[in-house]
């Protein structure tokens, strides 16, 4: 690329953009230089503009929301944004009931989101409080080779106890990532990664009201253990948004009518993730390479985020409700599933139970109806594990886990606290078909056998024997299982 021409052209175009404001002029868009990033600009070109201090951060960008996480605090020293990342081992909760010893930054897994503005000159101090050497690579960031953070290649690895300084000027905007680039297999598998959001100096396009950041990753945590296994290559059993599994993922709360942007970064070891959002189609507006020209943006309901890539999507939240957002790989929405089990779907198990109970009185065959009923049975499972656990929803048990979260769109919200469950207005709730409807539309169905009426007005029942009803918690008289609260 010819340096001279580019610089002059860029100057011309950006000044045009300034005059025209946030106008969606095709010319300006086409001329935006994300694809032609000058890479050799002197890194000591400080003070082109003064970075705004933290208190005024809202001044030149709308801060992003990192569900279950936060942004890295910074200070401004002589116009330079100064960050301090501390790599350390810590205990992390994936969801209530599952904790593990992981590696993260600044007391959290994954590391806090680094937010800055295009043009900022940044100094990032990285202290290694691990017992292994590490580095930090700035994934997708245009910077000098020596700051790239590849252990052995760009720099010496940061030894335990040492503090390194990374310093460069941000010449782009977009959604990027940072992660360890020394013994990546181990260190990333233990959690050493985070998101970077560089806001454009002059935002273009419609104003985004809610800006979310989600990082996807995958882990192998043997149920009953408390440390991820970095040697796993194919059989991951804990799939996370921002290092959390459902029901531990915070919902994305949005006021109806707001424009929403969701930035998704995938640093899973081996798997791409097709992230699907219910209730909407969105437009894919950017990758970790930069903004996609408007003509090139395409609509999706599921955006495939490859390993090592980010995808940014936008949509207007005009459809109120509780909307599932999740990886569409079915095994990625299960918590700590076991594999290599015999297939018990459709097996008549009465005689199996009898034969095995002679040896093991508390045995019960499971899986004949699939996995749906498992979570509510209340049986003892290995400590510190959440196999197949989901959560109680407003109607019934939500048999989901893993890489699953909920977009909650409500009319007239006054705060972004979790607004609870959505109540569907009359006429928009799927329920058992009424007899009059069946009759009117000529649908002939066999009457389902009436379940035996529960005795008395008890509040506890057995998950396997619904006819049992008890006022108090206890054990089922038929099979001995712990009784669960009745579904209202």
């Amino acid at each position, binding site marked *: 690329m010819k340096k001279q021409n580019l610089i002059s052209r860029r100057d011309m175009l950006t000044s045009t953009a300034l005059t025209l404001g946030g106008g969606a002029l095709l010319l300006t868009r086409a001329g935006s230089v994300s694809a032609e990033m000058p890479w050799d600009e002197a890194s000591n070109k400080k003070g082109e503009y003064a970075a705004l201090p933290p208190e005024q951060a809202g001044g030149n960008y709308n801060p992003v929301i990192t569900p279950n996480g936060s942004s890295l605090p910074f200070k401004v020293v002589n116009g330079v944004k100064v960050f301090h990342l501390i790599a350390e081992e810590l205990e992390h909760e994936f969801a209530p009931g599952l904790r593990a010893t992981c590696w993260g930054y600044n007391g959290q897994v994954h590391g806090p989101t680094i937010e800055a503005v295009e043009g900022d000159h940044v100094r990032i101090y990285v202290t290694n409080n691990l017992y292994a050497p590490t580095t930090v690579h700035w994934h997708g960031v245009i910077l000098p080779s020596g700051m790239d953070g590849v252990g052995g290649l760009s720099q010496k690895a940061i030894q335990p106890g040492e503090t390194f300084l990374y310093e460069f000027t941000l010449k782009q905007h977009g959604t990027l990532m940072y992660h360890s680039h020394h013994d990546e297999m181990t260190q990333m598998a233990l959690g050493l990664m985070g998101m970077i959001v560089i806001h454009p100096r002059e935002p273009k396009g419609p104003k985004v009201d809610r800006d979310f950041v989600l990082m996807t990753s995958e882990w192998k945590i043997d149920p009953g253990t408390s440390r991820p296994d970095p040697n796993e290559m194919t059989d991951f059993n804990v799939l996370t948004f921002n290092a959390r599994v459902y029901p531990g993922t915070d919902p994305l709360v949005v006021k109806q009518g707001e424009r929403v942007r969701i930035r998704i970064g995938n640093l899973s070891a081996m798997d791409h993730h097709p992230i699907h959002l219910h209730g909407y189609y969105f437009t894919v507006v950017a990758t970790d390479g930069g903004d996609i020209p408007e003509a090139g943006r395409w609509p999706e309901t599921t955006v495939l985020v490859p390993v090592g890539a980010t995808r940014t999507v936008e949509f207007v939240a005009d459809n109120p409700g509780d909307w599932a957002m999740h990886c569409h790989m079915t095994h990625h929405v299960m918590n700590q599933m076991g594999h290599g089990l015999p297939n018990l779907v459709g097996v008549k198990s009465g005689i*199996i139970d009898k034969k095995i109970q*002679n040896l093991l009185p508390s045995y019960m065959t499971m899986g004949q109806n699939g996995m749906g009923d498992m979570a509510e049975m209340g049986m003892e499972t290995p400590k510190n594990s959440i196999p197949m656990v989901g959560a109680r929803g407003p109607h019934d048990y939500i048999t989901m886990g893993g890489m699953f979260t909920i977009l909650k769109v409500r009319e007239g919200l006054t705060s972004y606290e979790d607004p609870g469950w959505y109540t569907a207005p009359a006429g928009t709730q799927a329920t058992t078909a009424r007899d009059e409807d069946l009759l009117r539309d000529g649908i002939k169905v066999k009457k389902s056998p009436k379940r035996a009426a529960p005795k008395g007005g008890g509040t506890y029942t057995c998950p396997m024997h619904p006819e049992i009803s008890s006022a108090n918690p206890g054990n089922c008289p038929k099979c001995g299982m712990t009784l669960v609260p009745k579904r209202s």
Partner: protein
Amino acid sequence: MKHLSVFFIFLLTGCSSTLTNQEAFNQVEIDISERLDTKVLWVNSKETEDEMSKKVTELLKQELTPDSATKIALLNNRGVQATFEELGVARAEVMSAALFPNPLLSVSSRFPSGGGRTNFEFGITENFFTLLFLPLQKSIAESGLEAAKSKVSNEVLALASEVKTAFYELQGTLQDKELLKTVLAATEASYVAARQIHAAGNTTDLELQNEQVMYEQTKLELAKSETEIRQLREKLTTLLGLWGEGTNWTIAERLPEIPATEVDFREIEKTALTSRFDLASAKTQIEITGKTLGIAAPFAVFQGSELGLDTERDVDGQWVTGPNFALPIPIFPQGTAASARAEAQYKAALFKYYELAVQIRSETRAARDKLIGHQKQIEFMKKVMLPLRHSVVQQTQIHYNGMLLGLFALISAKQAEIEAGRSLVSEIKEYWKARTMLERAVGRVFPLERPEATTISSPDKTSQSQHEH
């Protein structure tokens, strides 16, 4: 004639043994009851037969125990009764050894060719050499009786040991069979589960048949166990001398628990040397060969010496009467050969005794070490292995609950726990057999509770008392 009668009276008043079979048996009874804590009965009369019958019937009413089985065998086993008769044989030897040899009466008549009275000759001779050595011969025969008593007692102890070993072997196999039935239930449960899963179309014919193989294999093992049990029952029945109705005896299908008190291993070799009858027998053999050595030479040389009285009516009608005396002339050295033989036999008896003593000591130590070994293993299995296996089953169940392990893994874990139980039963069976072996080595039983003081009577002391009469 007067002289003859005097002679006869002298013969008859010679010291003879008036020992009865029962008196000979008394010592055996005392020795056995002291070592085995069990009564032994010589069934040689209608009364004793009735007594024995009654006792055995009584004992057979209950489940057999090692003690009751031993008691039954000692009363009922015809083989050991045959051994008792050896006492009769030995006693007869003593009797005959004490008896004078019968004098020889000779009568002859000759008819003179030239006329005159018929010549009559009467004579009585007695083997007088035997007379001289009669006490010594009797002494040898009495030692022979002591040896016979020791042998009989030893046979009784051997029988008791065999009975107990057969008993534990049977009981251990019965207990194992119960556990094997549980293993069968486990393989059956696996197979039934596989069948149901197969019926739902969820698994292959191959997987189903592999499960079936394990199930059928276990059935086979159980059948083999049942056959072995029948064989072991027969063995015990034979030792107990039972048949017909008597073969329906019952036995607890569990081995007894390891006793809480340990065997007293102090001075166990010394106990063995003083208690064992085969050693006592070997010692008596030294006595016998020693005594024989004393009379071997003269016996060989002067055997056939005679002393006698004869009277003759000559042709002229006169009676000539007078004593006679015959003695072999020791030209050829027959005595040396006999002496040499007797000496060799004496030395052989000495060496055999020492060899047996060394063997007994070694046997005792080996048996003790084996017993201690089994005891330690049992403790370890009870304290460590079995609780661990149980814990594994519980943990497997917990993982099964989380649908992390399948039902086949759960059944496998349970099966492994049962197999650990089978190993323990096998170990307990070996413990009891080892304890029986130690009792055999030491020559007495160990009480299950440690007594305050043990009095040990050795065969030497008792044989001494027998001599005084």
